């Protein structure tokens, strides 16, 4: 019976060239390839993306500002089992109503150390509300060669846009 609960993947979208990847939500899929296809159907039915990443949710190390306050010193202990350093992506939610947004990368030997470095390197004047870090190697991006076939068709479907319907004008002309 348990045939609906595949792994969960977090979906990140780049909306325009040069803009940072943003977290948009998640999908379930048996593998990263299907996760990308599901992500396209769920999050890009309208012109909304030029590129997407999927990352297994279990690979994301997440801490809210509140958790960092409570747990910071405890987390430092976790760094005992060191592995080789590797690059991690750093995301944060800087605005209360915002979403996780890519800031850059750090090199670290563990998620907890990556978090520490992220907080040290990227905290601005106002501390972010929440942080995410994950190893770069967990990201599956769509093949740039597929970008057109994935995202271009949405541009032709203007009937999906509310601006295609002139109901305000129609109602105004009735009231005259």
């Amino acid at each position, binding site marked *: 019976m*348990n*045939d609906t609960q595949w792994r969960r993947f977090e979906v990140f979208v780049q909306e325009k060239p040069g803009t940072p990847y943003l977290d948009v939500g998640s999908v379930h899929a048996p593998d990263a390839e299907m996760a990308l296809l599901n992500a396209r*159907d*769920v999050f890009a*039915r309208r012109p909304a993306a030029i590129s997407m990443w999927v990352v297994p949710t279990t690979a994301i190390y997440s801490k809210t500002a509140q958790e960092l306050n409570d747990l910071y010193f405890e987390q430092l202990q976790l760094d005992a089992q060191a592995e080789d350093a590797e690059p991690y992506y750093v995301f944060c939610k800087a605005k209360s109503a915002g979403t996780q947004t890519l800031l850059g990368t750090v090199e670290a030997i563990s998620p907890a150390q990556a978090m520490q470095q992220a907080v040290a390197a990227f905290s601005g004047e106002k501390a972010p509300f929440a942080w995410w870090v994950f190893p770069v190697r967990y990201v599956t991006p769509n093949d740039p060669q597929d970008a057109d076939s994935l995202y271009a068709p949405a541009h032709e479907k203007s009937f999906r846009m509310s601006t295609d319907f002139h109901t305000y004008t*129609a109602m105004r002309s009735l009231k005259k």
Partner: protein
Amino acid sequence: MYGTTTGEIDETQEEQERLLAFEARIARGEKIEPGDWMPAEYRRQLIRMISQHAHSEIVGQLPEGAWITRAPSLRRKMILLAKVQDEAGHGQYLYHAAETLGVRREEMLEALLAGKAKYSNVFNYPTLTWADVGVIGYLVDFAAILNQTMLARCSYGPYARAMVRICAEENFHKKQGQDIVIRLAQGTPCQRAMVQDAINRWWQPTLMMFGPPDHDSPNTPILKRWGIKTKTNDELRQVFLDTIVPELHALGLTIPDPDLRYDEGSGHWLIGPIHWDEFWRVVRGEGPCNKERMAARIQAHEDGRWVRQALAAYAQKQTAA
């Protein structure tokens, strides 16, 4: 402590301090994110609301989906198909928002398929004519927009973000429906009669979408206190009436309520009694289409089984290779 809906609230000193800090954050307009401390009752209320909301999006595909093959033109067919796809997407946004609170999508789907989950009553009514597609988009989606615009500002981050995405798409749903209603209202006598009949049938179910009257809605005080809702059921219903009644009148359509009147003093449209007996009957599973909707959903789940199995087998083969 919080009216009639109090769950088990631990009264220890630390919990009390946590609760005060939590409520202070909400008062400052901060969003609560997964990982942050939250009262068990806040989590419970959100899981209840978000999962019901997700189920409503999923079951909500069915009444309109029935008209995809019978849409009167290719353009209308593409529009309707796009709308129904959106509702499937909305269901997914919401299941995933609920998952951030510690429930699994699978549990929620199983509850729906087992007939244990609630979803919006409005989807237990039949779509008899093409005009129903117009009236659902215009009235039902507009009612949903009012509720969802409020929830887009709610205190739980993942729910608020899902709602922002949904609201952007719902505007298209409402306008395509309104567009159909405007055309039919300006059409032949037969088309006008068809759209009037659809309004007559959908009026009461739409008003009920906002939920029971405030005096009969025990969750509202705590939902407002914790920033999940900012308006009550009756307040939202009134916004709906004050917008829709003048528009339907301008279209030359009537509203099936002999008590409907404009109150000069308050500037509001007032209505006669809502058929709450019928509402509770439908909630209990005795609406005109409850059984049909559940049967269709179960059938769809079963029909998709081989696809899920094939995908799982392929993924397994890839990892083995």
